[in-house]
């Protein structure tokens, strides 16, 4: 268990600059972002496989900037497992301990312990090529566990598995963490993986830290339009919008005027007359009238239906005209709706988000 501090910078040969700082502790922290955002580089810098240009990395109170990977006491699980094809499952798991010249008896005990947790004892004699994807994944995790490191680093460990196995392994990793209680840093481009696994999420974009927060904070209080558009499935709806009436009205294209709830008028007033981006999550759009007084009814047209079984996604054009915004709503599966029909939907206006139209930064007041 340890605290891990990270405040550094890495310049790529092509001029791209990764610059991020945060601290994390004995919890699961997910680093998310689109490919090329620097998340894997960041993890490799922690592992010592990549140099940092400036700043420092602290693992458990020790500055490790100049320590080689083996002196950092971390264990890494790689995307395609990086198991040794010439070694058996047992040898793969024992590899790290053998290198450190632990006595044979202790090696056997520790490998056995890890194998029992992961239920792979029966695979000891097999070579990696004789294993299924999920089994390889377990062996790779076992190889990390036997080292009893200060922190585990996972580099997109599930991205090579099919969807079913992925959700299974996600549960496994979560259980594993509950059992071991170690610090885990987890890199993924899959927001579902990040939301379900992590206690803390670091969102990176183009080498910059955009938000470091709990999954709840990332989802409900995104710090930027990028974060809002990255989380949720389907992600948040956006529309260009202008603040009118001294902050009491949001004017959306298509002739839609939305009244701003009293609690938010003051902040909106500061942006009166300016172009902003309006955001609303699909679950905050309901067919017919909403469940609370804050829901505002709007006329629209149903463009598309996507039944998911548990609920149905409907794409609704709000208002009329070519510029009218199209929002996806999450509706009950039994809602009787037909594509093309005109209908009334309700928007939960106590849940909307506003973003600066230029920078994408969230415009947010106390408590929302």
């Amino acid at each position, binding site marked *: 268990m340890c605290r891990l501090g990270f405040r550094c910078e890495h310049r790529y040969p092509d001029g791209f600059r990764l610059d991020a700082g945060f601290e994390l502790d004995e919890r699961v922290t997910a680093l998310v972002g689109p490919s090329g955002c620097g998340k894997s580089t960041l993890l490799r810098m922690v592992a010592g496989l990549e140099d940092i240009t400036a700043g420092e990395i602290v693992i458990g109170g020790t500055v490790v900037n100049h320590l080689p990977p083996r002196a950092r006491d971390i264990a890494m699980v790689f995307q395609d497992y990086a198991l040794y094809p010439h070694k058996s499952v047992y040898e793969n798991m024992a590899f790290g301990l053998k290198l450190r010249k632990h006595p044979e008896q202790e090696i056997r005990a520790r490998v056995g312990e890890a194998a029992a947790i992961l239920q792979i004892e029966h695979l000891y004699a097999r070579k*990696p090529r004789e294993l299924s994807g999920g089994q390889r994944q377990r062996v790779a995790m076992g190889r990390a566990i036997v080292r009893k490191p200060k922190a585990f680093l996972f580099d997109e460990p599930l991205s090579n598995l099919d969807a079913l196995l992925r959700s299974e392994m996600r549960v496994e990793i979560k259980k594993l963490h509950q059992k071991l209680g170690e610090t885990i840093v987890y890199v993924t481009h899959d927001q579902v993986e990040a939301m379900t696994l992590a206690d803390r999420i670091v969102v990176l974009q183009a080498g910059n830290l955009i938000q470091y927060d709990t999954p709840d904070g990332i989802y409900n209080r995104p710090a930027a339009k990028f974060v809002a558009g990255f989380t949720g499935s389907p992600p948040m709806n956006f529309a260009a919008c202008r603040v009118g009436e001294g902050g009491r009205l949001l004017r959306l294209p298509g002739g839609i005027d939305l009244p701003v709830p009293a609690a938010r008028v003051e902040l909106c007033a500061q942006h009166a007359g300016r172009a902003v981006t309006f955001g609303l999550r699909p679950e905050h759009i309901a067919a017919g009238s909403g469940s609370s007084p804050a829901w505002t009814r709007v006329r629209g047209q149903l463009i598309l239906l996507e039944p998911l079984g548990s609920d149905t996604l409907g794409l609704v054009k709000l208002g009329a005209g070519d510029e009218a915004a199209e929002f996806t709503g999450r509706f009950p599966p039994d809602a009787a709706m037909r594509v093309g029909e005109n209908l009334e939907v309700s928007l939960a206006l106590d849940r909307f988000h506003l973003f600066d139209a230029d920078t994408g930064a969230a415009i947010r007041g106390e408590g929302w």
Partner: protein
Amino acid sequence: MTAAGFAPFVPAPVLGLLSPEEWQAVGLSVLVALTAVGASLPFGIALGWLMARRDFPGKSLLETAIHLPLVLPPVVTGYLLLVIFGRKGWLGGFLERWLDLRIVFTWKAAALASAVMAFPLMVRAIRLAFSAVDRRLELAARTLGAGPVDTFFSVSLPLARHGVLAGALLAFGRSMGEFGATIMVAGNIPGETRTIPLEIYGTLESPGGMERAASLVVVALLVSVGALAAGELLERRGRARLTAKG
């Protein structure tokens, strides 16, 4: 090794296929080729790894130097070796004065010439083998507590071993056939430096040589084809192993 040296290992009918002089040449060729490969393999592995894994100033220059024997006339390579290792050469003189070690015009010179001529082939195969090793396997070893040396011996080298063996076999085959540089630095001394190619060359110069050289030519063919085929097979097996996802 002489003809008599083979007698205990080779059944009589086979022994009769070649003359005692020819057996002597075969034995000498094997000794020369084994020595050449054995002595150059550590350097071949080191350079192959360096070429595959490291970038450093002067890399292309070093690469050119390694490949030079492939394109230089062997006689020129032999000449340069004479300049360096000759009794008055700057390295040869030193060796003879301080270590009482004479190289030129001994079988050691034949081995040296063979090693230099075969080196590009060896390094190329080894370099390819190291390049084919997944870098993440090496990185994983680093995070698991291996230093650079541990990583090399427990991950890189075992994974590249088929390619390393293939390189050694190719070099062995090439050494068995070395002629031009060998005759320059080692001369053509029966029982000392007269290897298979030199024996064939010598036989051809005497009357009826075409017919009498045929049996040694077959031996040379068999050795070369065998080394090539075995090398190719190993290289393919190594590739298959590495591409099988692990």
